């Protein structure tokens, strides 16, 4: 017990000796620019590129270095190595919250942040600029004769009614590997006990576990899976082959992840960071908003059932090592029945 606690504490406080691992790096704007904005992000370059280009359009003198890293590596870069970035963008709300809570973000106020809805800003440190729902992705070919489930209850009933069809053909995140999967799972449990029932049913059908949304969608497309639960809806809708599968936002409740940006406390050009944040928020919340996620995924249609994950210290609860351990034990016992 003591050993375990210490090692977890080390993860939070101490660090690895090696530098963090970047997945991708890109530069925009003039290469000899003196004004460089350094962004560290978990989002793919392609996903974020429109935002960067529109920002640079009115600033010919400015350049942007864009670094992509996993949320774990991002954490490592900021917490342990104290790398100097001007903006940190991440979909890992809990980890972002912890960064901010631990004083690694600086406060920023402007007209744009002031007009944000309350759920989109925390402590003037974290600013949400996307709303990305967890969806159920269903194979079109596999569901020709079967009615589509609109809620988790529908899904449970469906699975129970047709165990033979769905055995080994349902999938979800391996929450032990995926931070986002863990976030969705923990938030589902906060919303309803039905998650546990669903996990038990899925566990009984020998559910497949995945590291990431794209793998799950690929599996649905290839026919390995008929149903993938808690897929990041924005990924699904942004895929070119989105006509090959159904994207269902459960009507009982749809958990929504908010992608957030923050200015690290050691940002070298904090002023430029502020301008970028303003631009980011204008583009995503303003009247002429051009959201990064496709407009086809119209959340306002399901507004009453939206379960936006609340940015705030509540998210720290599930990062607690003791809490996480007990959650994972419970989750394993539900889904790993064989």
């Amino acid at each position, binding site marked *: *017990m*003591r050993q375990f*606690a210490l090692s*977890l*504490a080390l993860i939070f*406080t101490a660090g690895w000796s090696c530098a963090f691992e970047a997945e991708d790096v890109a530069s925009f704007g003039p290469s000899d620019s003196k004004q460089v904005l350094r962004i560290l992000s978990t989002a793919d370059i392609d996903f974020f590129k429109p935002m960067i280009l529109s920002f640079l359009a009115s600033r010919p003198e400015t350049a942007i270095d864009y670094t992509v890293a996993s949320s774990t590596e991002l954490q490592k870069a900021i917490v342990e190595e104290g790398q100097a970035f001007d903006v940190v963008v991440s979909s890992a709300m809990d980890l972002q919250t912890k960064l*901010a*809570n*631990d*004083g690694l973000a600086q406060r920023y106020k402007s007209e744009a942040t002031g007009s944000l809805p309350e759920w989109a*800003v*925390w*402590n*003037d440190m974290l600013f949400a600029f996307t709303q990305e729902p967890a969806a159920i992705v269903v194979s079109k070919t596999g569901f020709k004769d079967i009615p589509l489930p609109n809620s988790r209850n529908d899904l449970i009933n469906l699975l129970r009614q047709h165990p033979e069809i769905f055995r080994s053909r349902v999938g979800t995140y391996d929450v032990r590997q995926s931070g986002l999967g863990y976030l969705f799972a923990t938030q589902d449990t*906060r919303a309803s006990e039905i998650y546990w029932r669903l996990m038990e049913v899925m566990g009984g059908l020998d559910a497949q576990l995945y590291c990431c949304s794209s793998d799950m969608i690929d599996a649905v497309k290839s026919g390995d899976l008929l149903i993938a639960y808690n897929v990041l809806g924005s990924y699904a809708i942004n895929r070119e082959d989105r006509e090959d599968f159904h994207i269902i936002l459960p009507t009982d409740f749809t958990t929504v992840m908010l992608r957030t940006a923050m200015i690290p*406390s050691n940002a070298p050009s904090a002023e430029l960071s502020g301008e970028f944040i303003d631009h980011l928020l204008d583009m995503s919340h303003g009247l002429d908003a051009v959201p990064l996620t496709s407009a086809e995924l119209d959340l306002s249609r399901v507004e009453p059932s939206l379960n936006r994950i*609340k940015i*705030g*210290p*509540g998210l*720290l*609860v*599930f990062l*607690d*090592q*003791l*809490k996480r351990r*007990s959650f994972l034990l419970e989750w394993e016992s539900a889904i790993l029945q064989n």
Partner: protein
Amino acid sequence: MSKPAAHGSIRRRLLLSLLAGAAVLAFVVYFVVQTVARQVAQESQDNVLAASAQSILDGARLSGGEVNVDLPYSALSMLDSISDERVFYAIHLEHEFLSGYADLPAPEGDPSGAPAFLSAEFLGEDVRIASVRRRVSTGAGRSYLKVSVAQTLSGQKLVLSRISRISITIGAGFFLISVFMAGIISGSAIRPLDRLTASVSRRGPKDLRPVAAPVPTEMVPLVASLNSFMRRLQQSLLRSEDFIAEAAHRVRTPLAIVRTKAEVIQRVSDDPETRKALKEMIHAIDDSSRTAGQLLDHAMVTFRLDHLVLEEINLLHLVHDTVERLRPTSELKDITMQAFGEQDSVIKGDPILVQNALHNLLDNAVKYSPAGSQIDVVLALNQNEAEVCVKDTGPGFPADELDSLPKRFVRGKNAEAVVGSGLGLTIAKEVITAHGGTLKISNNPGGGACVSLLFPLP
């Protein structure tokens, strides 16, 4: 009369004292409200923190000799419910760190389980920390579990700034009401003084009756002193008048005896030497009696000028009276006196003083005019003044003395043979000046002097 030197003001002093008191009270109110409200705010924050820590502690279970803490979601989310706050926590089993923020400072928990609180700085911000502890039995024996929860103070600061604003508003409101009240109070406190001042200053210069109107107790000594002062002043004024009259009597009666006896002897004496000596003696007596008379007149004029009472005076009437009064004297020298003037020339002044001034001018004119000459007194009305001009056909004034003449005891160079003290012009000038007018001295183009009294018309 000179204005008394003012040193301070009762109204202002009263007002300032009241305002100072109000300001002190307003500050006290401000601080009391502030302190109490801060305490309440602090307590409510502490209660939330303690509840949060307690809910974590309640979620702790012993399983197989090990401590299992199931952090309730609400334990931390509740701290963020009203305002965005950074939240920290730490769970210790005795001194062994279990979870949360290892470096979070924590108050020494009370063994009885009551929450303990601490204000400290953590990760760059001020935080309030609550700690609760509970006895547990582990495999290693009896120990205790301690949960600390901390919260930044942005919500608290918002509350406090609102409290400050409210306290300031209450304090300022209290002060404003006090200012208003102080104004009313100081005004009403000073009113009897104002009334007394008004009633005293409404009086005429000769009205020295005691103040009889009721006054507040505090002012009774002042009014008593004032009354006693006025009584003494009245006595002293009466004495002054009596004194001047008595002095005149004392001086003049013996002069009258000597002069009359001298005249009798001079009439009956055959010896030219004796007659010549007696004539010179009578001349000297006339000189000194005239001087004494003018000195006493001057004293009386000065006295009356200090207590000038203004009445309406018909100038023409006064001019005629004065001319008639002096006519027998002028006739002795075969001097013809005539008075001309316009009717309806009414001025404001003390008739006795004005008549005395004119009398002095006419007396001078008679004295300095040669026998058989003529004196005209002309009353003319100009646009805003009345002019009484005494014209004679005497020698006139030396041009270089026109300015210095009305000064006391200055007599014209060419008048040495005539009995007179030179005070006449001085008296006239003082009287006319006190009436807001001027004395004009000039020589007539055709010879002789012209002395004018110019009175402002009311």
